[in-house]
């Protein structure tokens, strides 16, 4: 290094010039709650439990998603379909309780791949923030897709 380089001051001024230029550049910030960044095709967000064409829940509570989950975020309780409930559930067995702990979930998408009934997809938005830990355990009320009839109305 020659004397001019050993002085460091020119290098410092150069760096300060660069940072000063950035003051007038376009800001990259996206103001999140009001605006959202565009998601990519394979974005994995909040889970949703799907319905079939007739509006019946696809899930048969086989437990493969819970088994494949590396974070052990999924728990479910299965129940048998009663007479008269054929319009609600597609299979003879269904999930009476289906809970995902969003604090444990790592959004890896393995449940999606394990599901034989194509019942669970991670196609939702960003999981919103909350104040209490218990509010992050999402039950069927938050996970199941709205039925066709409700959607149509």
């Amino acid at each position, binding site marked *: 290094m020659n004397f001019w380089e050993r002085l460091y001051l020119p290098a*410092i001024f150069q*760096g*300060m010039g*660069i*940072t*000063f230029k*950035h*003051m007038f550049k376009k*800001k990259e910030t996206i103001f999140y709650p009001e605006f959202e960044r565009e998601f990519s095709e394979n974005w994995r967000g909040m889970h949703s439990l799907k319905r079939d064409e007739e509006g019946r829940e696809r899930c048969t509570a086989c437990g493969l998603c819970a088994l494949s989950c590396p974070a052990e975020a999924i728990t479910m309780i299965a129940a048998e379909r009663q007479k008269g409930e054929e319009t609600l559930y597609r299979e003879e067995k269904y999930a009476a309780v289906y809970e995902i702990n969003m604090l444990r979930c790592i959004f890896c998408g393995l449940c999606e791949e394990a599901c034989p009934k194509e019942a669970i997809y991670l196609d939702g938005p960003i999981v919103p923030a909350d104040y209490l830990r218990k509010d992050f355990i999402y039950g069927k009320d938050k996970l199941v897709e709205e039925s066709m009839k409700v959607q149509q109305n």
Partner: protein
Amino acid sequence: MELAFIIEKFGLILVIFLVSLTIAAYSTLAERKIAGFLQDRVGPNRAGPGGMFQPLADGLKMFFKEEIIPTDSSKALFILGPSLALFTSFLGSAVIPWGQDVEIFGRQVSLQITDINVGILYIFGVVSLGVYGIMIGGWASNNKFSLMGAVRAASQSISYEIPMGLSIIALLMLTNTLSMKEIAEQQHGFNWNVFYQPVGFLIFLICSFAETNRTPFDLPECETELVGGYHTEYSGFKMGAFMFAEYLNMFLASAVMSTLYFGGYNYPGMDFVNELLGPLFGPLIGMGVLILKIFAFIFLFMWVRWTVPRFRYDQLMNLGWKILIPLAIANIVITGIVITLIDKL
């Protein structure tokens, strides 16, 4: 000691106290805003229009946080540390001349709290006292990281006080006085000291970065090595006091640099403005100019912080002892030679 004099001084002290508090509080916002701008972000913008109330929100948060005093710490010293840091950073602004004399109701009012004839040395002393707050706080925390931070603060401040003092000596050889008021008066118009002492100013600037513990010299609180440095154990309002002291020190250092080297309240064409606006508003414009200069220096502090990376500790010591001190001494010698030559001619 007439009554009007006491009221006048008391009012001045109150105003300067409040102004420096406000500026220090808004420095925290400015720091985050500028950091945002330099990194293509916008900084805090939710509390109030453009984030205007962010300092208030931060202050309230600090105030309501739980105060934790570690069990094995020495309690009195643990509280004394941040109090002392805050106290000493307020003291310095007493000798800064904020403007020319103002005429209110036919009275000449000096815009300086007190003009002691060793003004510069007083500021120097107050600055050197500031390190006690950090040292006492760090030691009383009874924590290795805090202690290391305190020790670093002490050695750093002592190392950089020497070149700072030497750079001031070269300035004093020009001004022939230690009084801040006279130094400010000598720089009337555009006759600023920085044109006669550029090297001295550079040394003073670098040392004031080190004395205020700002990046690139923020080793006493460097996160990567020492967690939080001397304030690792602090929380709540005591932590806030340390932060506030840092910003107040920055304000004071900016004020001193503007007064010593950048003409204080002087600006080109001030005589014309003073005649135009009369003896009350003319000096107030000068005061505004001084505050603008201070803002410019505070911006410089922040700009450097978000540009230059932190020094390693041996680099810091090398810079202080092997570069700045010889440079400052050379500056004194050259200044002396030039003054003698000019006197002889």
